[in-house]
Each structure stands twice: as structure tokens, then as C-alpha cells.
């Protein structure tokens, strides 16, 4: 469903990862690991199509990726259902709102303004947003931040169900998510090298002499 071929990504004009390759097929989940600042967020943004890759290819059919970033894209003054309804409408999936609310245990909070939620409740809403997209490939950046143990369990269940129905997921995280089976990719090995060590040359690596 998603194949990455020797991808290199850059931030602030500097290459940070290179030679990243993997493939995800239906029912698979891949966990990205690596120390802080190794480039997980940058890689996910590139795969989601928000920034162009420096080199390599991203092979995926159109309209399969649902990106879940750090920021949840919630409107503070709208209620929980209003927020979900909006995203469901954008993705043309209005019927999914009710199940998403139930799955993320938000039914009791449905009519609260998003700004009056606690950190973990907001995060749950962010995950519910993912469910209403109806997209098969989830690309998630640290999805379980701020969640208590019960909510992490909810998320793991949702993820399991998603994989079970032929979905796939790519998850960057530092914390263990209690999941049956996931592959892990450690990005430390893919740290971009300087051009003189064989890394990709940027636009201004020519010697001016």
C-alpha cells in the first residue's frame, strides 16, 4: 500500500535522513524509532506529502494516507462532535462520527468545547479524527502522548481493528504501544552523511574556489 524507496529528507535545507526504504502492505504496522531529533517528524511529513523528498521515491496510490501530526487540528471553540463532523465532511465520511466517538470513549464529552478538554482528552479527540478519515494508511507522529494506560489500550484496540480490516500504519513513537505484532525500523542507521562521506550533495556543496 505504501512503499518508500531510498528516501532522503531534509529540514532547514540540511539533509537529515537518507537511504530509508521500506514497504507496508495491508494489515502491517511499522514503528519508527530513533533518538530525539533524528528526523522522524520530517520523514512522516514528507511521506504525507507536506514537503518534497530530497531524493528517492514514495510509491502510494492517491488518497490513501491519513496524517496525524503532533498538533491535532482542533478548533477550541467548536464542540467535540462539531470538530469531528467537520473532518468527516472533508473526507466525505459523515457516517463514521458516531463510531469514532464510541471507539475513543468520547461520547460523554461529545458536546464539550474542545478547549475545555484535558491534554489526554484532546489527544483522544485527535485520534478519533483519524478514524473518521476512513483512509487505509495511518501516518502517526507520537500518537500516545499524554494518554493514560486505559486510553493507550483504546488506541491499541482501534489500531488492531484498523489493521484487521486491511489497513496499515506507520507510527513514530518513543513509548511502547501494547500491540500484537509490529515491525520496527530504527532510523539511527539512516542518518544522513556529509557529502564528502558519500551523502547526497545539497545545492551549495560545490567548492567556490
Amino acid at each position, binding site marked *: 500500500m505504501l512503499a518508500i524507496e531510498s528516501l532522503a529528507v531534509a529540514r532547514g535545507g540540511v539533509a537529515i535522513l537518507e537511504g530509508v526504504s521500506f514497504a507496508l502492505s495491508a494489515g502491517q504496522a511499522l514503528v519508527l524509532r530513533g533518538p530525539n531529533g533524528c528526523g522522524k517528524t520530517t520523514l512522516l511529513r514528507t511521506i504525507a506529502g507536506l514537503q518534497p523528498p530530497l531524493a528517492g521515491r514514495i510509491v502510494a496510490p492517491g488518497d490513501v494516507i491519513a496524517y496525524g501530526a503532533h498538533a491535532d487540528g482542533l478548533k477550541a471553540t467548536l464542540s467535540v462532535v462539531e470538530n469531528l463532523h*467537520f473532518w468527516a465532511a472533508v473526507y466525505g465520511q459523515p457516517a463514521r462520527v458516531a463510531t469514532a466517538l464510541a471507539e475513543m470513549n468520547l461520547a460523554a464529552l461529545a458536546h464539550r468545547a474542545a478547549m475545555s478538554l484535558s491534554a489526554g482528552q484532546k489527544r483522544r479527540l485527535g485520534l478519533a479524527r483519524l478514524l473518521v478519515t476512513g483512509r487505509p494508511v495511518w501516518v502517526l507522529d507520537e500518537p500516545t502522548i499524554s494518554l493514560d494506560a486505559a486510553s493507550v489500550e483504546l488506541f491499541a484496540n482501534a489500531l488492531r481493528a484498523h489493521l484487521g480490516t486491511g489497513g496499515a500504519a506507520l507510527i513514530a513513537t518513543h513509548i511502547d504501544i501494547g500491540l500484537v505484532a509490529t515491525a520496527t525500523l530504527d532510523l539511527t542507521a539512516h542518518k544522513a552523511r556529509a557529502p564528502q562521506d558519500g551523502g547526497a550533495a545539497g545545492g551549495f556543496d560545490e567548492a567556490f574556489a
Partner: protein
Amino acid sequence: MIALLARDLRLAVRAGGGFGLSLAFFLIVTVLVPFGVGPEGGTLARIAPGILWVGALLACLLSLDRIYALDFEDGSLDLLATAPIPMEAVVSVKALAHWLTTGLPLVLAAPVFGVLLHLPGPAFVWLVLSLGVGTPALSVLGAFGAALTVGLKRGGLLLSLLVLPLYMPTLIFGAELIARGASGGATTTPLLMLAGITAATVALVPFAAAAAIRVNLR
């Protein structure tokens, strides 16, 4: 797209009214000017068309940076960029929402403010016409300027600086239209120009704005 429009309008109303507030600001500008300038009716009547247009323009300007800023900060813009809606549509819808909450109320309320500035009687029709035809261009151009500055902290003043020169032609023809209408002059040329500017802007600028946003999200 309708969902986006509905959401933006709802947010504007929810957050203490993008609606009433730009009106209030317009009112305040038209009230301020006589204080600065002095109360004689003659002077006021002469400068009224210009002041009304400048007031509308500033009311518009003040609300511009909110077109995308909030969506950028809370991550919605990233998510919209990955959603199955073309960015051009997002920009157009947001410009439309801005016009509905800012331009339209101004058009409807302008005659009242005209009274405050002793605008001469025959000019009222032209005031409404000129604002009605001209303000959509303000919203679309504003959406373009906002797209250029999205993601910049303190983009507000920079935004004004970028957008104001773009507003100049609209302002000149708009004010001229009212002034000619008031004095019974030939109104065809400014009206045509104004309509032309608006039509061209609405048709073409969203593409530029969408490109700017995509670059800014990178």
C-alpha cells in the same frame, strides 16, 4: 467545501463575532475621523467617500491575518493540505467566508456611516454599489497576502504592508466612483474598472495563494 465554509462561518460567529466586530471597527474609524479633522459638514462631505473606502479597507485588513493563522497554529492547515480538497478550493472558500463576515456587513451598513460623514444624498447608491463590487477583491487579495505570511509570527503588520499596495487600484476606482456619482459625473469607467479588477482577482489570485500556502507548509 461546504463543510469548510460552514465551519469557518460558525467559528467567526462563535468567537464573539467576526461579524459584528468588523462593522464596529468601521464605525469607529468613521467616528474617529471627524474627531481628528473637525466637525464642519463641508469638509466632511468632501472627504467622505475616501474615508469610507479607507475605513472599509482597514476593517478588512484587520481581520485578514486570521484567515489562516488559527488553522496554521492548531495544525488544521497541515491536515487540510493532506485532505482530499484542492488547496485552491480551500483558499477560495476561506476568502468567501472572510467576505461574508467582513465585506458583506460593511456593504449593508455603509449608508448609515455615510450619514455620519454628511455624504451627499445621490452618493448613497454609488457607495453601496462601489463597496459591493469592490470588497470581494479585497477579501481575495487579502487571502493571498495572508497565504504569503502564514506561519510567520507577528505576520500582522507585514501582511498589511504587503496587501495595501495591492488594494490601491480598488481603493482609487472605488472612491472615484462614489465621488463621481455624488457630483453627477460619468461613472462608467470607474465602475467597469472596479468590476474588472474584482472579476480578474477572484478568478486568478486563488491559484497564487494556494501555491504560497503549499510553499509555506513545506
